[in-house]
């Protein structure tokens, strides 16, 4: 066993990492005992506090150029657990914290509980689960230990599933049950793989693992099982069957958090696994296979989205397609001719796509929710005139759509541009065709929706409910963020490389 073990130590400000995980946990426990009437107020304090903590961690890592580390309980790995904030973690943490906070603002209209005299069901469940998701995501980004990451995955699953069936209709219960089965299957496969890895290397710590890992059958079996499990949780084609009914049936705020945030958690673990825990172990053939799954997701998801008659289902299928883009980073990073440059570029592109999809998709689900609330339905063919009634909402939807298509200067543009650049640099033109075709298909369905909403109404438009201004502002805020994300190229994008080891040597393969 190579003895290159370098012991980590808690860095200055490492305590902030504990805070990022503990704050939501405190919120969950307090909400249970203080009751549903206070849950919103507790979330209203703790979620912004979590955002501030995430920003401080981001600034420390960006300026220091070094990861923050905290050794929990003072026990060094392999015995204890380490929390690590590197460039990937801090970028994702800040992005997800913003999205979750704005979803919280949006959700006040549907799950507001300040005025209620007794505790009611939906608000308590929603706010507790929203805090749980925020804590679980922070843990996924910061956890430096494969089993701690499993616990985080469990937290995330049990927080996400009840959100699907929050309004209790039969079809949403079915969707939630199907989601639960897929997600638990994923958890079990991940856990089995983790146990196999521990059996082979005697550690669960990601850094120690990366130093000890060898190419051997047990490791490959473990990695395959874990990756399959995480694919099921991320809804990568063909394991996406649970996603559209679950995301389309949930209340708008829940759809936004499920589509924008939750699926990114398991995706981040796949990245951690192959880029950090088992560096250089992904063979070219396997990475091409992952790319094929991603490409199939892009093509199939977009074509099915194009054929949808209801707006929320269309957006859900578009999530299936956009998840496909995330997986194109694997064949590009682990190409036959590895160079540190492409490796970093592909990783940056994948993370940018994750963040820009999160902001854009949350905005679009919110907009769809507002349209549904105003009209009482979301049939695309009958949306005529809504753009005049809810201009700000439709503007948010359109901006989000631009980001999904990948028009400049949106974050989606930058992500797809980097992906295209990597396809050319690594001479894998076939992925470029998929990226461009996916963009065309996306623009087709965004165009269909926009042209319908701007067209004349079939019958005089009756609005069932007035849409609160702040909900529209929340959606527009997220949409603007997704547009402005393209500008990160000018500054903080290099934070993603903080704490990254050198690209793996080809010798390991």
């Amino acid at each position, binding site marked *: 066993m190579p003895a290159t073990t370098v012991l980590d130590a808690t860095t200055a400000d490492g305590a902030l990492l504990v805070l990022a995980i503990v704050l939501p946990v405190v919120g*969950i426990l307090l909400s249970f005992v203080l009751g549903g009437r206070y849950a919103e107020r507790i979330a209203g304090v703790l979620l912004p506090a979590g955002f501030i903590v995430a920003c401080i961690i981001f600034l420390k890592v960006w300026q220091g150029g070094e990861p923050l580390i905290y050794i929990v309980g003072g026990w060094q790995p392999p015995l204890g657990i380490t929390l690590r904030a590197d460039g990937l973690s801090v970028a994702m943490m800040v992005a997800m914290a913003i999205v979750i906070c704005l979803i919280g603002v949006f959700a006040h209209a549907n799950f507001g509980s300040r005025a209620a005299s007794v505790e009611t069901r939906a608000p308590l*469940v929603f706010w*507790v*689960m929203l805090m749980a998701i925020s804590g679980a995501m922070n843990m996924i980004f910061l956890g430096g230990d494969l089993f*701690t990451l499993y616990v985080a995955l469990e937290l995330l699953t049990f927080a996400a599933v009840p959100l699907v069936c929050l309004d209790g209709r039969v079809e949403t219960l079915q969707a939630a049950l199907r989601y639960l089965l897929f997600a638990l299957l994923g958890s079990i496969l991940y856990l089995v793989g983790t146990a196999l890895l521990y059996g082979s290397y005697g550690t669960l710590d990601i850094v120690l693992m990366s130093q000890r890992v060898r190419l051997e059958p047990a490791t490959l079996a473990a990695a395959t099982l874990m990756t399959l499990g995480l694919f099921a949780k991320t809804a990568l084609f063909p394991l996406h069957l649970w996603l559209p009914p679950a995301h389309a049936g949930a209340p708008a705020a829940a759809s936004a958090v499920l589509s924008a945030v939750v699926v990114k958690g398991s995706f981040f673990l796949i990245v951690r696994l192959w880029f950090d825990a088992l560096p250089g172990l992904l063979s070219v053939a396997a990475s091409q296979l992952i790319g094929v799954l991603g490409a199939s997701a892009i093509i199939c998801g977009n074509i099915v989205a194009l054929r949808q008659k209801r707006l929320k289902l269309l957006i859900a299928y578009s999530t299936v397609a956009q998840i496909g883009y995330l997986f194109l980073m694997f064949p590009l990073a682990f190409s036959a001719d590895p160079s540190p440059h492409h490796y970093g570029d592909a990783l940056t592109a994948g993370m940018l796509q994750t963040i820009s999809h999160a902001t854009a998709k949350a905005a679009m689900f919110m907009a769809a929710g507002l349209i549904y609330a105003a009209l009482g339905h979301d049939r695309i063919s009958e949306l005529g005139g809504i753009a005049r009634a809810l201009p700000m909402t439709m503007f948010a939807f359109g901006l989000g759509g631009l980001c999904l298509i990948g028009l400049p200067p949106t974050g989606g543009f930058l992500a797809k541009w980097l992906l295209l650049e990597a396809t050319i640099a690594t001479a894998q033109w076939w992925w470029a065709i998929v990226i461009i075709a996916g963009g065309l298909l996306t623009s087709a369905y965004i165009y269909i929706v926009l042209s319908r909403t701007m067209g004349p109404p079939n019958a005089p438009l009756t609005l069932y409910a007035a849409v609160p201004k702040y909900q529209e502002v929340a959606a527009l805020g997220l949409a603007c963020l997704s547009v402005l994300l393209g500008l990160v190229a000018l500054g903080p994008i290099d934070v993603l490389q903080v704490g990254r080891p050198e690209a793996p040597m080809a010798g390991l393969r």
Partner: protein
Amino acid sequence: MSIASVFDIALVALILAIGASTILVRTAFAAVVMFAVYGLLLSIAWVRLHAVDVALTEAAIGGGMTGLLLLGAVARSRSDDVDRVRVGYPVRLAAGGLCALVVAGLAIVVLHPPAAVPTLAPVVMENLPPSGLGNPVAGVLFVFRALDTLLEKVVVLLALLGVWSLAPDRAWGGTPGLQVYAKPDPPLIFLAQLLPPVGIVFGIYMCWVGAKDPGGAFQGGTVLAAMWLLVIVAGLQKAPAISRLWLRGLLIAGPMLFLAIGLAGWVFADAFLAYPEGYAKPLIVAVEATLTLSIAVALAMLAAGPPERAQQQ
């Protein structure tokens, strides 16, 4: 061949047979019963492998608690519906393929062990004395990997809230309906009067002994939960309304105390979830005792299911 190996071979054959019949039996009820038996046999196998902690957990959670939850699920769904649903061949093939993959992965590892199997067990034993604990499993759960244990308890709370969230809005805050399990009849009532005193003592003992020997909060909590459920199902006591403050308080007491002691470790022992020197054992026992209560309440309420009747004023 010694008696022990004959016993082991027979046990393995029985486990395989019961496992196969869990899949092959026609009715969901029979499958659940087989599954519970399977869990109990498995726990005997763990005892044979000298993993008593795992055996206790398997018997309490794998066989007992999970079996009970599954029984409740079968009873809640109309039985003819459950048994008429036949799973199609693609799903069966996929399930079979996945199982084969998992088995292959395990077989590769078990059949080709590394020359020296890496393990942290010696390091754990070496670092255990300062904590005053005698059970290495408790050491891993409450000293070295306390963060995981703390957050797993939060997962249990979320699962409970998830079950509660299935209640109709009008029943929110009310009492769970437990009639699905059994109708109170004299033998059941007699059992519910006879068992709990013994069971409660046993549950407390399991929690207490967990610091030194196999046992612990989860196993003890399961026993306590079973006793409480028995009393409620027999109709000797009513299920509590889920909005009761004492119920909510008990649910979070364990994780809250654990978190508070963890945060205090920041001040008194220079790290989150570290224990000040000399105080480790009393603190851990306090955490375990409160966790036992919280787990007992959470598991019992999980089995009791979502509230069905609005609370009577």
